[in-house]
């Protein structure tokens, strides 16, 4: 069995064959990097979709391919060394991988925007914040310098930066970390895009500020009815904000579920391991659980299930056959909408 065969019949996380209704529909996306040591397969057949007003959290550890998928959607992947051998990225039903560079550029910022992890390094140090915010309007809408600046002040007010009018000509280094991330959010929001991809938006922030920024993001998303893809490795951040979760491992989606169901009853040993490794107050004094081993080398992904060397439940079949993302059902066979697991033993994992 080849990878293509397996991924072709993977059900989309949510029902529906047509992508017409979906805002963004990623289908069987593969991304590889051609390096000196060989081909690193960073993304191996990812399927996910987001509707307007919906929040999808993509969860996974470093190197699981979550950021690379986002970069492929944005079209900011460095190619070469990156390559997209197969897959479709449908935005409102149109395949963005088939568009011209100019068409894609017009979508970026206008229809799909991105929030980056480190706001300090993502803002140009030599340009004032107001200029960078106003640039969005000048590039995409051809506004004058003055009108763009007025819009910038408006945006800064919107993300609740105090004294926006006085601070609009300040430079990034004059803002605190939380304020900088608000500016990044304002930049992404500037043209009221349909979809926002937030790549670990709170990782570089203080814990107290994290909650504020997430709350702001969620609120603005509701207000504009945007789709949001939240990329994170922080299970705590996800719980409050996301509608559904896709867990990634070694470039594949191993489990999808509505957010609370995942926490209640994980259907993949990897997800279970992640949840067990969250420190809990009622297990004070005990040793914290950790998933043994390391994430696989993307140049040599293990045969069969990529998780098998680290999995406590691994059997012989796990070392030979790649598990398909199958719909997860109740014990009596009644369907659980939106749930899927790529494990040969999902039944045992969820019901056992």
């Amino acid at each position, binding site marked *: 069995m080849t990878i293509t065969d397996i991924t072709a019949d993977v059900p989309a996380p949510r029902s529906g064959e047509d992508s017409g209704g979906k805002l963004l529909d990623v289908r069987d996306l593969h991304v590889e990097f051609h390096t000196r040591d060989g081909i690193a397969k960073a993304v191996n057949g990812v399927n996910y979709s987001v509707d307007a007003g919906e929040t999808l959290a993509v969860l996974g550890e470093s190197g699981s391919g979550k950021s690379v998928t986002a970069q492929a959607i*944005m079209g*900011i992947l460095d190619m070469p060394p990156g390559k997209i051998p197969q897959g479709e990225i449908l935005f409102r039903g149109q395949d963005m991988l088939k568009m011209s560079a100019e068409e894609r*550029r*017009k*979508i*970026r*910022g*206008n229809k799909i*925007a*991105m929030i*980056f992890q*480190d706001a300090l*390094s*993502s*803002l*140009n*140090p*030599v*340009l*004032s914040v107001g200029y960078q915010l106003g*640039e*969005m309007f000048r*590039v*995409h809408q051809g506004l004058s310098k003055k009108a763009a600046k007025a819009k910038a002040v408006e945006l800064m*007010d919107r993300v*609740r*930066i*105090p*004294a*926006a*009018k*006085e*601070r609009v*000509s*300040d*430079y990034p280094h*004059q*803002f*605190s*970390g*939380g*304020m900088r991330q608000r500016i*990044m959010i304002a*930049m*992404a929001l500037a043209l009221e895009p349909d979809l926002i991809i937030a790549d670990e938006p709170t990782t570089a922030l203080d814990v*107290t*500020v994290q*909650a*504020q920024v997430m*709350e*702001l993001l969620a*609120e603005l998303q509701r207000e504009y009815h945007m789709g949001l893809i939240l990329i994170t490795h922080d299970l705590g951040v996800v719980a409050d904000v996301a509608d559904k979760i896709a867990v990634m491992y070694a470039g594949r989606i191993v489990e999808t579920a509505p957010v609370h169901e995942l926490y209640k009853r994980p259907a993949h040993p990897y997800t279970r391991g992640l949840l067990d490794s969250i420190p809990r107050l009622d297990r004070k004094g005990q040793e914290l659980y950790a998933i043994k081993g390391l994430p696989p080398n993307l140049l040599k992904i293990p045969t069969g299930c990529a998780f098998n060397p680290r999995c406590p439940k691994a059997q012989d079949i796990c070392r030979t056959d790649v598990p398909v993302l199958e719909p997860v059902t109740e014990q009596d066979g009644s369907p659980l909408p939106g749930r899927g697991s790529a494990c040969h033993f999902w039944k045992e994992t969820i019901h056992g």
Partner: protein
Amino acid sequence: MPDLTKTSSASEEAAAVAGSTPVITDAGPVPEKPRSLGADAWRGLRRNPLFVISGLLVLLILFVAAFPGLFTSASPTIGDPAKHFLGKPNLGHVFQEDWFGYDGTGRSLYARVLYGARNSIIVGLGVTILVTIFGGLMGMLAGYFGGFWDSLISRLTDVFFGIPFLLGSMVVLNAFTHRTVWVVMGALAFLGWTQITRVMRGAVITTKHADYVVAARALGAGTRRILFRHILPNAIAPVIVVATISLGTYIVAESTLSYLGLGLSDDSISWGSDISDGTQFIRNFPHVLLFPAGALSITVLAFIMMGDAVREALDPKLR
């Protein structure tokens, strides 16, 4: 402080608008004036005595080069060999015709030093500007687009780098019978652009992978905007430094070429050709050599000192 009260009232307002959301706590006090990196560097420079001295000197030299006639009424081209043949300098006669003495054809050396500044400065500045624009563009092209363009431009700079600067310009200039400042400028720029290209290429390569460039791309900025608005201002600092320092070198190169008789044609006044003339009298009348040579040294020193101060101000590691 009026600024502080304004800030607090504004943040209260913002909090009131926010309603139920938590009050933002991480708003710092508003500084009096926003400062860019350039303004930061300027503040540092103003306090640096090295920069103040060299800067004033450069301004003075530029002023002399622009209006030499304001400083003397003597002619730099017409002398009286009978009366003033190799006349000794009279250091007490400040700003007078015979302050620096006379040369072999009885011309006032003071006037010649003043008028010679213009050609030296024009060649030095002109070559620097040409080299910075052309070399900078080539460097940006090579650094940003990489691949084929990078290989092509890099090999081209390698070829030009292999040609000795002075020897090469001598060969080029030898082909011209009448050598104006423009010809000399062109010859020096033709052989000198490679250094800036290398510096610019390196700076652009480091900058183009910066997160803010990726972010600008993700938010829909086009290639030209990314290149000139986001990369250039962040990559220009090392180029400015190399350019200011090499300005002195170009002035020396022009003088060297004039000394060798391959610089400006005989009818134009230049420190280099005056130094060349002075060498024949070096034993008995050293002043004919010393004054133009001194003017050249001071000018080059001023530009190099200024370049060094600028480098210090723009170098983030030294802050």
